[in-house]
């Protein structure tokens, strides 16, 4: 089942407003995760993989 167009747009807007800018891989996997979550077809391991791809600003830490 394809994603509702309004949810699809909301997802794109939310991803675009992320800072630092997320990687293409993250965008692709996050979108897929949401798609699967909407039909209750996602695994915890999938969440972990996407989570590890999140880019965060760690400047100033060493």
């Amino acid at each position, binding site marked *: 089942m394809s994603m509702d167009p*309004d*949810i699809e747009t909301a997802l794109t807007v939310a991803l675009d407003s992320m800072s630092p800018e997320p990687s293409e891989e993250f965008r692709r996997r996050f979108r897929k995760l*949401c798609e699967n979550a909407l039909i209750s077809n996602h695994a915890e391991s999938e969440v972990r993989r996407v989570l590890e791809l999140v880019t965060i600003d*760690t400047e100033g*830490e060493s």
Partner: protein
Amino acid sequence: MQVLIRGWSARNLRGGLRHLDIDLGEQPNRWTLIQMANGMGKTTTMTLLRYAFTDEEIPPSVVQSFRGGDEATGSFELRLLIDNRPYRLGFEFNFRDGSATRYTVRADTRDGGHVAGRVLPTELSDLLTPQMARLFVFDGELARAIRDLRQRAADEAIRSLYRLSQISGLKSSVDKLVDLEQRRAAAMTSASEERGLTRLRNARNEASAVKRRLENEAASTSTSLEIRRAEAARLKAAIEEHISEDEGLRERLRALDDRERELRTDVNELNVEVLTALRRPPCVHPRLLERLQSLGGRLFELKLPETMSAEFFRDLATRDTCICGRELGHDEREHIIEGAHRYLAQDQISIINQMKLALRSTEGDAQAFSESITRLSGKLSDRQRLRTERERLEIERVDQGDDELELLQQELATARSDIDRLEAQLERLTTRDSHRQRALRLTWESNLPQCETELGEREDRLSIATNTRTFKLKAEAFKSLIDDVDRLSLDRLRERVRLRTNEKLVRIARTERLEVSRIAGFLEIATPGFGTKPEISEGQSLSVAYAFLTSLLSDAPYRLPFVVDSPAVSLDAVNRREVGELIPGFFDQMIMFVISTEREGFAEAFYEKGDDVRFLTISREDGETSVVPGLPFFRTFQDRDAA
């Protein structure tokens, strides 16, 4: 995904549900109007339909309230078509203890179809919550709830149907992962906050500084040691040269050198002999030889290792039948292949058999090893005696008044003392021998290998804490993104539903124009051009609810039936006709329970729709309930209320 209701049946329940079977056909009609008088079980049926669709527990008091007579048990079963596959969801009631036992019957399943509980496709199982059921098995209370400022029924309806809660539910998965990560890290360190990280970073820096200091000390000690050793060697050579100047002593010294050379050769040869023997355990001690031979004998007795090999099972998995004669299917083959690794491979068995043979035929002369050790020990004693003799020569010379030799000896003694001290110092700094470390009471601050271990552990703790913190920061960013998606989706869906609701309100609320001005958890109603309208009539409330629900349900990703009780009873004549004409067009299936007074204006709208409509009338004569199909009886039926 499409869900259609094919019918339901009830046994021994109150009202007209003592013995009722409603059949809507294998492929249900788009619209069904069921006419039944008040008190015949409309409300009970609606309640049971909601319970059947969801997995909500039925309280014992509610079960007991369903009781229709003296019978101790009763039942209710709902028949569905889910994406054209038949399902039956049912309850067996026990009125004595108030229990309700659920079951599901599915066609074309390996388990025979009948299973305990509610078993639906996962996607649907999550969707059909009690809140959701109130939408499509329409609860009249909802008409008020969606306009109640204190409630969030409108938002909940949108969120349920578009499954936004599934996306926001990802946050709890993230929390679980963070918790798991923190538990793992807690085994090493409890610091994941910045203050804790600073403490760990300082600890790591401290160990790093100590390591640098110890490395410098070890390097400088090692250099000093080399210098002193060279100095000692030079002094030793000078002493020997000095002694050689004396004719008599020179001869004795040469004889000592010759004997020492011979001894060195003998010691080296014996060393090789002893080390070679040590590598062959049967030659070390008669007891060892006896035990090895005994082990070989036992392996033979017990026939170990097993002759069954992994290859046997891999070969078996390719055959049609097992060695016991039974047929092997795909699952059995998979199981055999999976278990084959537990057995030794052919080459491994061969090696172990060789070892077994070798053990059994083990031979060795332990006496020879003992004799070699004795000889080596003797040679080492001889070497010590030679050294003593050499020192005696030097003493003799000094006693004769050789000041220069005495001075050289003193310098050599100082050098040797320095060497001993420096060697001890270097050992303290560099020994890896744990026994020596304990004996010398060394710590990570005085011993380099211990310091390296300590530094490694501190770096691990810092790394884990840093990773945990990074993981937590990522989780926060991820959850914030999910919140954004949830909020933005809800905003967009609210607006879409609002606009479509207003399109319908233009048609079904004609007596007074109404519109939804805002969806903010609840529906805010306004009169166009006159602002918010907090009070509306019951009929208007119902019109708004229908317009909202049809906009919501007809456009959602799931095609659900719409079941409604007395849909037009509170609407005025104009709105009844509009509702009757407009609303049913939005659903694949609509089931309407009506009373005879709703025929006028509302049910009439369906009379001309032909085969798309099924008319059923439930009547009771002499305590017996009957279901009469067809329009003629439906349009002429006079119930007690109407009479």
